[in-house]
């Protein structure tokens, strides 16, 4: 496998950093690969533009920053607008189509939509939208194994929200399954 460069973008409070942490931990601790996660954020705690990035590789990651991404997960219009241009040709875009409404030309890459926030709201907690998206992206983009991702999600969330997050991950993954087939 060559380097897989994943960019996750949205706004502060959506769990953008946690999402990258989950991807990196799943890949490096449970899938036995090398993963390097970095983040960018403004001074705001919530609401500001936020992005995180993970580079996954079979060998040591020399260059940990993501200038051009292979996979982009967009959870806000601003995050989409800012990073869609640096998604490589033939890359994979996963976006929340309720939050990202103004679309650019998608012919360069593979774009896949999921109403992640709406699904999360149906599950009772809007906050798990990032986990729905991670489930979806796990199926669509294959940067980490299903088992490693699910195990990490369950480890990283507070115990009393484990069931909710497990359901959120499954819903996203299955939605990905339906889109795929």
């Amino acid at each position: 496998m060559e380097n897989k460069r994943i960019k996750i973008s949205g706004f502060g409070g959506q769990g953008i950093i946690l999402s990258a942490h989950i991807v990196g931990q799943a890949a490096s601790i449970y899938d036995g690969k090398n993963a390097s996660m970095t983040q960018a954020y403004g001074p705001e705690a919530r609401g500001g533009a936020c992005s995180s990035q993970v580079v996954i590789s079979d060998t040591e990651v020399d260059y940990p920053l993501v200038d051009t991404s292979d996979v982009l997960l967009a959870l806000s219009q601003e995050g989409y607008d800012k990073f869609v241009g640096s998604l490589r040709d033939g890359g994979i875009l996963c976006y929340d189509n309720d939050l990202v409404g103004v679309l650019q030309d998608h012919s360069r890459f593979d774009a896949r939509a999921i109403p992640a926030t709406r699904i999360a709201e149906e599950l009772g907690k809007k906050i798990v939208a990032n986990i729905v998206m991670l489930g979806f992206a796990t199926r669509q983009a294959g940067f980490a194994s299903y088992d490693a991702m699910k195990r990490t999600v369950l480890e990283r969330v507070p115990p009393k929200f484990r069931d909710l997050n497990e359901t959120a991950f499954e819903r996203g993954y299955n939605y990905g399954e339906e889109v795929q087939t």
Partner: protein
Amino acid sequence: MFKKSKLRGEFFMQGDIACAEGAVSAGCRFFGGYPITPASEIAERMAYRLPLLNGAFVQFEDEIASMASILGASWTGVKSMTASSGPGISLKAENIGLGMMMEVPCVIVNVQRGGPSTGLPTSWAQADMMQARWGSHGDYGCIALCPKNPQEMFDLTIVAFNYAERYRMPVFVMTDAIVGHMTEKVVVPPVDEIEIIDRRYTDKKPDDYLPYAVGDDLIPDFAKVGDGYRFHSTGLTHDERGYPDMTEHAQLTHAVRIVEKVKKHADDIILLEEKGVEGADVVVVAYGITARTVVPAIEMARKKGIKVGLMRLITAWPFPTKRIRKLAGEIAGFVVPEINLGQMVYEVERCAGGQCKVKSLPHPGGGIHKFETVLSAIEEIAHAK
């Protein structure tokens, strides 16, 4: 996660957290600090960890007090640390000099961000390298370590504590906001596999003990607080008793010694990593995150047939003078990329002494060197041979 008092195993861990865990593993039990981006996670982690280990965390009114506090804590026999970023290190500078003068073991972590002044709070640079060396007034020896990833944030923080105790002085961990905020796999070995150097106490009786008397290694022995030893220390130039002695003689012995003790042990302190340096025409000298980000350009240059090696400075200070001087006589030139406008390159130029070319690759911070920039610099030096 990471809640056990003693960790062991593999973790997906942030650099700053790994630094705190390295400190804990090294035996650090006091942290005095004042929060600042991008070093706050170290303080946060220590605030959580130290009470579990019967240690103490204190957030002081400012950086000046926090630096003073770790000197005081260290005098009592407790391994101590503070962490900050450029603006905070500037404030600590006065008391760093006090630590150097009184020869107090402690560790100072600088998670470098863009400067000068408030600069780029959430972004990175490597622009405090000379501040670490010369930031406090007067002459003193300096030891500074440059981790390149979260694993080394753990490992080199332990080395920093070992050096601090061995050479009796404040030691710097010079990292940056990329490595500090980067998360990667960190392997925490079992406690008994970690080499720890503890404080050297005198074997003299209280009546025979002089706090600043030294033997061949130029490093004075400690006395244990509460064991009945007479003790005095000051920031003024002092004699072997630790009492002020503001004479040329005292300056020639004590003030010179705190420089000489680092020079004398430089070969034991210096840590270098060389890849493909033997037989190379071009040697890239880099440290910290830059030693990683230049690798793709080095690999491309090799594919193009250029003999290029990478020398990574794991310790920036003391500088590997002898090694660079020797290489300078054998190669076409050095390329020195760093995320500042040219700092360690001065040392490379000094050691090269005109024997070969030295090309500085500056970057002001907030970004990193472009692949093409590094590649064309390597090509330029190789073709100028």
